[in-house]
């Protein structure tokens, strides 16, 4: 109370200047101004799912760009023996999965067949016996996990004299046995793939009606059925031999490693080693192979590259065309707009599949399949983009700042480019990004339906891979699994990324979720 009483007469010395040395004025912002793109980037960064999606897109892009360069294989690579082998990864195979094995149900003969390959090559074919059942007739059936690589086993190849010599030198150098003795298989009717090159063991019943069961010695081992020197036409051989083969020193067991025929030498080789010899690397297909023996991993990357290339080109062209068309429509309005809208509507109403088909029929011979597909996408693709830009122009052209610019004498071109267009840029970028998965989907659909045919010896597409794999869906689902997985991840990522972009470019959402 007493303080209040003294309010009227403060002593002079109690007063002090708050500010004496410096002059007061507005302080400039120390921080940098947040521009449109920075603002968008800040909002985009907060959207976790969109960031993750962006990372996935980058990974898929890297996959498409890098893999064709570093892969051992290319699209042209086809292997007649490693057809439809299952996915195998060297790293994961140690842990018992992703090891290229497939479950088979086999009779005794089939089991013997696989086991014999394993015995001769030293690489296990039957990884595991999961089940053993007897049917009503008392015949035993095995459920086996069979290595789809190792089961190829042996094949016959025809070599020239020179080639035969080189292969022997390779054997001497590396100490790896590639050439194995030929077999007396002419009486065997039981042939199971590879023209019977894997029947090196004696069969229980060698008649033509043989059921293919193996004959075992008293120790339960296979008994070999190799061709010996008693047979004529055998070629000179001076390289690695089987352990029980003395090379004729004791005058008895001398196996035939090559047989002369019209064109050169018929040789029986361990295909796994032979593959390494001819190609220089181990046969491992990360995603398996298709029915042509192509590496799915590499084909997928090549197909993805094609898809991305097409989609990005289409998106860029449509972006340009749509922006120009939409800007003119939206800015000038009136009759111009009406006529241009009509044209766009007519083009937009033609079903895309019809356009693609017509272009294919007319242009494919002149500009190629890909070129005509590109034209088809461009012809109808810009319509949506133009509509979006047009709407943005309608929203902004009547605003006061545009009027101000016009009053100051800005030309139409300047107003369009400098004043209105930047407002539409967010919509356009979002639209362009969201157009990419659409193009990729349409392309895969069209090539799946065989309306366009992108498959040549050195070209493939995701849709083609799906179409080729469909017949094997039951038996070899991996052929469809990987392309389908790729396209699913791609579509999901692009959708999430596009949604993130749309929110990021929408300034009205600024600080909405803080």
């Amino acid at each position, binding site marked *: 109370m007493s303080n209040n009483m003294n309010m009227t007469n403060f002593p002079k010395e109690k007063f002090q200047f708050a500010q004496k040395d410096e002059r007061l004025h507005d302080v400039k912002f120390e921080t940098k101004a947040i521009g449109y793109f920075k603002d968008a980037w800040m909002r985009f960064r907060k959207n976790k799912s969109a960031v993750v999606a962006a990372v996935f897109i980058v990974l898929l892009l890297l996959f498409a760009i890098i893999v064709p360069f570093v892969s051992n294989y290319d699209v042209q690579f086809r292997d007649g023996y490693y057809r439809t082998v299952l996915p195998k990864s060297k790293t994961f195979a140690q842990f018992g999965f992703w090891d290229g094995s497939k479950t088979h149900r086999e009779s005794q003969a089939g089991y013997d067949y696989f086991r014999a390959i394993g015995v001769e090559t030293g690489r296990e074919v039957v990884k595991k016996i999961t089940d053993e059942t007897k049917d009503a007739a008392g015949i035993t059936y095995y459920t086996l996990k069979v290595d789809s690589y190792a089961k190829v086993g042996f094949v016959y190849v025809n070599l020239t004299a020179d080639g035969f010599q080189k292969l022997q030198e390779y054997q001497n150098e590396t100490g790896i046995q590639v050439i194995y003795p030929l077999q007396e298989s002419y009486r065997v009717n039981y042939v199971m793939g590879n023209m019977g090159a894997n029947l090196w063991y004696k069969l229980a019943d060698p008649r033509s009606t043989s059921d293919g069961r193996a004959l075992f010695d008293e120790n339960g081992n296979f008994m070999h059925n190799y061709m010996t020197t008693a047979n004529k036409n055998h070629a000179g051989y001076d390289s690695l031999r089987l352990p029980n083969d003395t090379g004729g020193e004791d005058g008895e067991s001398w196996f035939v490693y090559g047989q002369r025929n019209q064109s050169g030498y018929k040789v029986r080789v361990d295909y796994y080693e032979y593959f390494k010899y001819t190609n220089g690397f181990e046969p491992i297909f990360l995603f398996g192979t298709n029915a042509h023996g192509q590496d799915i991993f590499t084909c997928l990357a090549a197909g993805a590259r094609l898809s991305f290339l097409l989609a990005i080109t289409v998106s860029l062209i449509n972006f340009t065309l749509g922006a120009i068309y939409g800007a003119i429509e939206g800015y000038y309005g009136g009759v111009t707009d009406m006529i241009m809208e009509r044209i766009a509507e007519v083009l937009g*109403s*033609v*079903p895309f599949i019809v356009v693609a088909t*017509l272009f294919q029929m007319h242009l494919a011979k002149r500009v190629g399949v890909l070129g005509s597909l590109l034209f088809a996408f461009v012809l109808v693709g810009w319509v949506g983009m133009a509509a979006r830009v047009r709407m943005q122009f309608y929203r902004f052209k009547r605003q006061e700042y545009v009027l101000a610019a016009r009053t100051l004498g800005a030309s139409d071109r300047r107003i369009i480019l400098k004043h209105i267009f930047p407002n539409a840029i967010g919509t356009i970028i979002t639209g362009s990004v969201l157009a990419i998965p659409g193009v990729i989907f349409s392309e895969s*659909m069209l090539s*799946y339906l065989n309306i366009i045919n992108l498959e040549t010896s050195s070209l493939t597409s995701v849709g083609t891979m799906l179409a080729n794999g469909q017949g094997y869906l*039951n038996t070899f689902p991996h052929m469809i699994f990987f392309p389908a997985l790729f396209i699913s991840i791609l*579509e*999901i990522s*692009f959708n999430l990324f596009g949604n993130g972009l749309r929110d990021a470019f929408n300034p009205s959402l600024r600080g909405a979720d803080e």
Partner: protein
Amino acid sequence: MGKYIVKRILLMFLTLFIIMTMCFILIKLLPLPAIREMGRDVNLILAKREQMGYNRPLLVQYFLFLRSIILYWDWGVGEQMYEALSVWGVLTTKLPYTVMVNLYSILLSIPLGLIFGIYAALKKNRWQDHVISTLVILFISVPSYVYAFIVQYLFCYKLGWFPLTVESLESAGFFSLRMIRSMMPAILSLGFGVIAGLTRYTRAELSEVLTSEFMLLARTKGLTKAQATSRHALRNAMVVILPMIIGEFIGILGGSLIIEKIFSIPGVGSLYITSINVRDYNFFMALTVFYTTIGLVSSIMIDISYGLIDPRIRMGSRK
């Protein structure tokens, strides 16, 4: 409103006419398919082509084409496939399969989509909503053929629940259990995407309506949450959702080419693909017109239904 509808329909016919003309000319500019000579009289075919006016000027041919459609509803006959059978006749025998698959899948999807959407909107920003929204993004993005592969592999091959091919109409009829069972894989594959789309749409619309002020008013006047939602929020959300459903219903005629191919359904889609592969231009032309018309009609129906459902949106009524 009436004026607007008439205007839209007239414009539709104009657009259709332009597209038809373009397609007709483009198709006629293509070389005629070579005559397969095995067991045929080449001269007879050439004479037939002459008689059908294939050697006359393009515009005359187009005039003849339009006249036969308008006067006799005659779309020509098959030349490379279904030889000498009327194009329209073949189309109408194929249509039921396409319609059936899509109709069943939509009838299955609409209730599910609505239920999920409503549920997600009511539980907005809670875990139920997050789960549904995440699934929706997944299911909307993954292409329908991927579902088709999964369904075919799992249900047809591994579990053996459904047959691999669709029963024929003659033996099974429209509504038999056998028919539905054989179409189930296709129905499922088509359904996932529709359910996800509808869920997303319903959730977005309903959650917007739920936050509007008249909902608060409805609650203050004493309605329970369920009453307010069903009587006010849902009705307002339906204004936007219903046109989408109507659009879907017309779209079912178009069907899905890729699903028809995967499950080898003998529908319009397969007819179209075959007509391209064997170069039967009469079928190709008719189906082009068919698909274009469906697209145009469905977009018109969506626009008009907005006005019909909600009197507040009567486009062009004041013009």
